[in-house]
Structures are given as C-alpha cells and as structure tokens.
C-alpha cells in the first residue's frame, strides 16, 4: 500500500495534481475529480451576496473515517471503480481556493466515475462532520447545513 492517505483532512492547500496521483492506476483510463471552491459572490433572490473568506473546522478522526466509509459505499455501488480519494481542507480558505477534492478512477469513462463522484460529494455534504464559517470585514457566522433525515437529531426547538 502507498503511504499516501486516500481520505485526509489537511490544513495545507489542496492540489488536483496530487489527488490525481493518489488514484492513478495502470488499469484505469478515466478519472473524474470534483473540486468545491470558495465562492466570493453568490447570486440570491435578494441580489448578490459576498464573502471575504471561509474558515473550516472538522472533527478530524471521525471525518476521515466517514470519508473512507463513503469510499467503501462507492466501491460497493460501482464495482468497476478502482480507486477513490477524498481530501478536505480546514482552516482559512481564500476565494477560488479548493476546499474539497474528490477523485474517482475507473477503467473507462462509462464505468461510473462521473456518477460515483457526484454521489460522493452529496454524501460528504450530508454526513461528514465538517463546518464552515463565513467571514466578512464586519462579522462572521458558522454555517449550518440542511437537516439530514437519516440522522437522529439530538435536540431541537
């Protein structure tokens, strides 16, 4: 096994070349990579909303465990997938920087690499314990994602 981790939370900038190397295999001809990047402006019904930068926090060991589990789910649902890697950054992330990378390698492009990669980012956003804080010159707020029906809520209003 390679000493390089396939599922990793890191404070360092993410590299698409790095994740491609992590999943590259001689029997795979197609790799799909999803990059989630920091939006500086978001169009909303009330007009454009801006962000200065984001901070990410993770429950690191649980997050890496859940990301590895998403990799297992992918290999089970798409048996032709040969390799999956998920990297998520924590700490301060500037506009346009990638905060998450997900790469899926298959022998051919029709073997599920697109579908599996899409599945993996949806799962990450549902169950991996990572949170972002939006920052502006005059304030900050922790963002809470949508409620997840599959998980049991501990307490609520």
């Amino acid at each position: 096994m390679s000493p390089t981790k396939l599922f990793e939370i890191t404070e360092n900038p993410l590299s698409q070349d790095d994740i491609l190397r992590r999943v590259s295999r001689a029997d795979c001809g197609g790799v799909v990579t999803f990059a989630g990047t920091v939006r500086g402006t978001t169009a909303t019904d009330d007009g454009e909303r801006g962000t200065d930068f984001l901070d990410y926090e993770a429950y690191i060991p649980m997050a890496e465990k859940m990301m590895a589990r998403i990799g297992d789910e992918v290999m089970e649902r798409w048996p032709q997938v040969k390799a999956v890697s998920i990297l998520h950054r924590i700490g301060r992330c500037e506009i346009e920087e990638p905060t998450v990378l997900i790469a899926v390698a298959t022998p051919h492009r029709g073997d599920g690499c697109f579908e599996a990669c899409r599945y993996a980012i949806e799962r990450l956003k549902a169950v991996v314990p990572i949170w972002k804080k939006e920052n502006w010159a005059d304030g900050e707020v922790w963002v809470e994602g949508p409620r997840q029906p599959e998980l049991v809520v501990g307490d609520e209003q």
Partner: protein
Amino acid sequence: MNVRLRLFAGLRQVAGFKEKVVTLPEGAVVSDLLGQLPSSIVGRTFYIAINEEYARRDTALKDGDLVALLPPVSGG
C-alpha cells in the same frame, strides 16, 4: 461514570467551551447527558456521535465515552 462531552463549530462558540467531563449514573443513556446541557445550547439542532460514530438518544453510555454534539454539517 464519566464521559467527555465535546462541542463543534457554532455549538462550541455559543457554549463557550470545547470539551468537558460530565459525571453520570451507571446505566445512563445519551438522553440523560442531554438533560445536563448548558442552557445556551438547549433548543439548537445537533446530531450525536459516540466515539466517532453517529448514535441515538437512547444509546447506552459507558465510562470514558467521547460524546460529540455535531451541528448540521456544512463541509464541501
């Protein structure tokens, strides 16, 4: 028994602490722990993890467990 209670992100910010030890009677479940939460976070939505696995309110606790309260995740 003693369990560690750990908070993340907005919950940590509101409560003003990251981790503390809570003493509970033998046989306690997660709900018993939740009954001792600081008032600042009562009423907020969160999920529960015990030793890095999602758990339920009726999950039994044991001495040394690490119980984390997780706001709805917003990674990606």
